[in-house]
């Protein structure tokens, strides 16, 4: 390719920098969002996997007991019986003063050797301190460096055992290494686990497990498994390590797929922007193309020079986008990690490290997208032999022809999408494929619908010359107006879809909380919500609580992880209020509701939550083998109820059923108190608090409103990242419509100059341009409503059900829909301000001289 040809082509960058900047912004934002979400996802994923792996260590099996743990004497018996490859563990979540949730792993440092890697790679010096100094704890590798603390610090930890001051030791310093120079296989990785390792005795105090263990890790040969299982007492179970954490892993993955889909949507919208500006870049230079062709430059060279420019834009945009993406990922990763912590497992991520593979993938994506967007304009440019051939007229005629073909393709895609939904093919990924088929179909249908809408509108304003010019001009620039409108429609539809999903979800959760919280007051362990699972209160408090509060009814509930034939499952054992089933949001039952309470108390029967039924593919009448008091028994599923408290799903069992043949659970997770009608709740709270202080147990009294507030705060945190992505998507769409309107008006500059020379005032020109922006905005907003509602429905009925097993009532958030419509129209009007200002101020004579 001739250097002069290249120069002739690229010098346009200096003449029209704004167009190039807009194209670059499209690539930059598209690449940045995809990379940021990918990095945040990967970092959280690694932190999660690492936490799970480090908790399990090199163990092949674990001995597990009830939620309140089991007697530590069993560990001694086990070793004495010859099982020496064993390590006792006490574990649970806790909270730092700054609110961060951490995971405390209490180990016997002397037995740990063969089990854990980086997390408990604690070296000789710390071992001595951990064992000899109570209240010492090793934060994860890198914590001291990140927090800026010296080698030793003191903190108050809040956990199941209440508040305790602990001494934090820097494991690197204790080994005479420099600060943060941890040994091990990448322990200094900034997305290391949030495991805080301590001696088992300290953990027992922190987590309220004095004299008890949560589990024993074992390394067993295949032939040893059966022998040990047979030797265990009834309340203990031997489980293979790989069965733990599977459900949480799958759920965390579903959450990440949701985020990735959102980021791809942002990229798709950026693709429209890139396509639009690339087409414009070629059209603006049709004279250059014609002149080059006339002096003998071949079609291939023209094709090549356009693609080369796209390559340059792609490379520059991708490099800048990658830099922005890494910065954005720092913001996102904190939110992703918080969500994983809220719902699945405590992880801590202090930063992101771009992996070469992720960078390479996003590089290919950004550059590939730029090249793909330039292919059509490059082909147009190469095909043309004269200025007339490269003009808009030819392109627009072809665009109008394409619109019909695209509409045909759209109908095929829409039918394919509907087919996938109806047949339920492909589960979660299938749901997303169906979603993208529907989006693609809808978007491909838009040019045709837009063309007919504009024709109809032009007919409506026949005789009103200026509006007619505005509308007809849009229709005649379909190759420009359709992609811009599609970009805006897509962004607005995504906003509506997410609003429908989040609104429906939020509404359902609020309703569920209202139904589930049937007590007037709750007494719970004084631990953070995410750390409450393992904390227990004495069963014997019931009488005291009634005496202090005057409660007419006291319920209790305890969640524990138990072994079942479906792996480890969360079991919620309740001693409910008499009328509890009236309030439980039952979806279906195997027996009449009036008989359900008696069956649940008298028989081996349970209820399961909707997510549990979905994840474990169980239904009414199925039987679950569960570890209850006295050992494993088969329980019949008598009902499925709605629950948003645990995405992994929960089995609900009455205390009467649990305790049949054995003792009730050791300790209570929470008490619910119903006060007499007209009782003063404030007084009851005061008396209870005074009484609790005397009990010297860390417990607190909460009201349903507090729990609702806390739950909704977690809910809102979960969706904060979705809102952020929604805003980014709208920004990209705004830039797309701005670029399209600028292009549209610049192409029509000669027309505007003619109108001005005929006597149209500058204000009239501004009005025309703003009217065009308004028409596109209103069309995009109206088109976004059905697409957005469809996306919302699909997210609720297919994707969330497949991903999380959550069902929810569809609520149409008309206020948000209205806001989004106004936002779309407003964005389009705002985007038309700059081109309107430019057109009204342009010099007429040069514009009149432009080649038509």
């Amino acid at each position: 390719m001739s250097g002069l040809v290249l120069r002739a082509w690229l010098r346009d960058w200096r003449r029209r920098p704004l167009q190039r900047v807009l194209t670059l912004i499209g690539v930059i934002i598209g690449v940045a969002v995809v990379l940021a979400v990918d990095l945040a996802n990967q970092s959280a994923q690694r932190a999660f996997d690492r936490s799970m792996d480090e908790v399990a260590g090199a163990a092949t099996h674990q001995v597990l007991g009830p939620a309140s743990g089991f007697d530590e004497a069993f560990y001694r018996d086990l070793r004495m019986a010859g099982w020496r490859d064993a390590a006792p563990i006490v574990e649970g979540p806790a909270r730092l003063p700054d609110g961060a949730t951490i995971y405390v792993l209490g180990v016997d440092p002397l037995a740990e050797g063969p089990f854990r890697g980086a997390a408990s790679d604690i070296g000789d010096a710390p071992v001595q301190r951990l064992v000899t100094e109570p209240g010492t704890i090793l934060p994860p590798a890198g914590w001291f460096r990140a927090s800026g603390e010296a080698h030793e610090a003191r903190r108050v930890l809040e956990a199941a055992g209440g508040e305790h001051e602990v001494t934090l030791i820097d494991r690197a310093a204790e080994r005479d290494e420099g600060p943060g120079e941890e040994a091990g296989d990448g322990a200094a990785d900034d997305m290391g686990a949030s495991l805080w390792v301590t001696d088992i005795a300290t953990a027992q105090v922190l987590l309220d497990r004095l004299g008890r263990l949560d589990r024993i890790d074992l390394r067993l040969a295949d032939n040893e498994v059966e022998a040990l299982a047979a030797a265990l007492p009834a309340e203990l179970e031997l489980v293979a390590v790989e069965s733990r954490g599977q459900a949480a892993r799958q759920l965390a993955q579903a959450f990440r797929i949701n985020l990735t889909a959102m980021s791809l949507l942002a990229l798709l919208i950026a693709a429209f922007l890139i396509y639009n500006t690339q087409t414009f870049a070629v059209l603006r230079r049709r004279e250059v193309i014609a002149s080059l062709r006339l002096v003998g430059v071949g079609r291939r060279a023209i094709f090549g020079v356009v693609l080369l420019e796209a390559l340059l834009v792609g490379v520059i945009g991708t490099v800048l986008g990658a830099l922005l993406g890494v910065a954005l990922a720092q913001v996102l990763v904190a939110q992703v990690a918080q969500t994983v912590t809220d719902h699945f497992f405590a992880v801590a991520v202090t930063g992101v490290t771009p992996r070469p593979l992720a960078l390479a993938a996003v590089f290919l994506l950004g550059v590939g997208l730029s090249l793909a967007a330039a292919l059509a304009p490059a082909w147009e440019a190469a095909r043309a032999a004269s200025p007339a051939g490269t003009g808009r007229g030819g392109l627009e005629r072809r665009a109008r022809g394409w619109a019909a073909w695209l509409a045909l393709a759209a109908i095929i895609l829409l039918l394919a999408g509907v087919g996938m939904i109806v047949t339920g093919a492909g589960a979660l990924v299938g749901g997303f494929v169906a979603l993208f088929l529907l989006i693609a179909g809808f978007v491909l249908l838009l040019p045709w619908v837009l063309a007919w809408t504009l024709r109809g509108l032009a007919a409506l304003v026949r005789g009103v010359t200026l509006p007619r010019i505005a509308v007809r001009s849009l229709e005649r620039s379909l190759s420009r107006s359709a992609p811009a409108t599609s970009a805006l429609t897509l962004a607005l539809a995504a906003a509506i879809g997410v609003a429908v999903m989040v609104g429906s979800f939020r509404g359902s959760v609020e309703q569920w909380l209202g139904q589930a919280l049937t007590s007037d007051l709750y007494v719970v362990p004084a631990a953070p919500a995410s750390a409450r699972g393992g904390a227990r209160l004495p069963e014997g408090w019931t009488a005291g609580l009634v005496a202090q509060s005057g409660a007419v009814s006291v319920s209790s509930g305890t969640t524990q992880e138990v072994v079942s034939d479906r792996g480890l499952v969360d079991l919620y054992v309740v001693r409910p209020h008499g009328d509890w089933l009236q309030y439980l949001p039952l979806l279906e039952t195997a027996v009449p509701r009036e008989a359900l309470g008696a069956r649940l108390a008298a028989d081996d029967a349970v209820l399961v939550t909707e997510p549990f039924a979905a994840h474990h593919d169980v239904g009414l009448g199925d039987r679950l083998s569960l570890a209850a008091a006295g050992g494993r028994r088969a329980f019949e599923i008598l009902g499925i109820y709605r629950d948003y408290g645990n995405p992994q799903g929960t089995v609900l069992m009455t205390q009467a059923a649990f305790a049949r043949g054995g003792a009730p659970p050791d300790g209570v997770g929470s008490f619910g108190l119903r006060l007499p009608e007209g009782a003063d709740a404030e007084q009851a709270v005061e008396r209870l608090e005074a009484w609790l202080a005397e009990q010297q147990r860390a417990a607190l009294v909460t009201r349903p409103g507090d729990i609702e507030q806390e739950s909704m705060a977690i809910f809102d945190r979960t969706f904060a990242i979705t809102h952020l992505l929604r805003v980014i998507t709208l920004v990209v769409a705004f830039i797309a419509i701005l670029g399209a309107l600028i292009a549209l008006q610049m192409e029509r500059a000669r027309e505007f100059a003619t109108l001005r020379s005929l006597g149209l005032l500058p204000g009239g020109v501004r009005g025309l341009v703003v009217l065009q922006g308004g028409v596109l905005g209103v069309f995009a907003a109206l088109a976004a409503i059905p697409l957005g509602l469809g996306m919302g429905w699909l997210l609720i009925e297919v994707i969330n059900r497949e991903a999380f097993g959550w069902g929810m009532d569809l609520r149409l958030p008309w206020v948000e829909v209205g806001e989004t419509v106004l936002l779309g129209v407003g964005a389009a009007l705002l985007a038309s301000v700059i081109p309107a200002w430019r057109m009204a101020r342009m010099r007429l004579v040069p514009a009149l001289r432009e080649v038509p």
Partner: protein
Amino acid sequence: MSTGTTQHPGLNGQQKADRMSESSSFSGPVLRLIGAAFAYPGEGEVLHGVDFELAPGERVAIVGESGSGKSTLLHLAAGLEAADRGEVHLAGEALAGLDEAARTRLRRAKVGIVFQSFHLIPTLTVLENVMLPLELATDANAAERRERAGRQLTAVGLGDKGDRYPEALSGGEQQRVAIARALVHQPALILADEPTGNLDSRTGETIFGLLLEQVRATGCSLLLVTHSHELAGRLDRVLTMRDGVLQLSEATEGVPA
């Protein structure tokens, strides 16, 4: 030198333009340039102090080579560009005293322009193109506008093509539409910039004849820029633009410029 300008002290641009468009008492030159000079940004001066007057009903041609400044003179006359020095008076109003909006209002009331490359609005039908100046410059209602535009189209021989779009017409037909559009609101002055430049000689001849016929019929003044001395010779007066200076052509010597 007296400018003959009708000044309206204390009026804003809108009021001035309205007064101008309403006024029918003005009897001085339709167009008057006094020492008008102009340079495009970053370039040398194109017009060097041009003095020129166009009487009501007078038809004047300006000939000259490419780049001599003929079209620029037309742009100054239409108020599309503002003179750097000197004065330009349109229908008695000094353009220098008007802001952009007032200049536009004056132009749409008093001037009709015929361009070399037609400049029809592609998104409007032929009839709508002709209706446009009526909509911008008059209070006529839609029915009146339609009726007047239809009449004007018939006058240029395109009465049956009002519903077509410009792209469906030949070059000659498009220029007929442009002439109809320039005349439909009965301006005082028609400015024609190479109106036959994009047409073959035979069509050009026809279009030129039509333009003259229509101008005569309406009684307005005509200032026409052309390369063709032959066509120019058919007007009342021919001036030659040479290097930005307006000179009396030999053929019409004796007639004051």
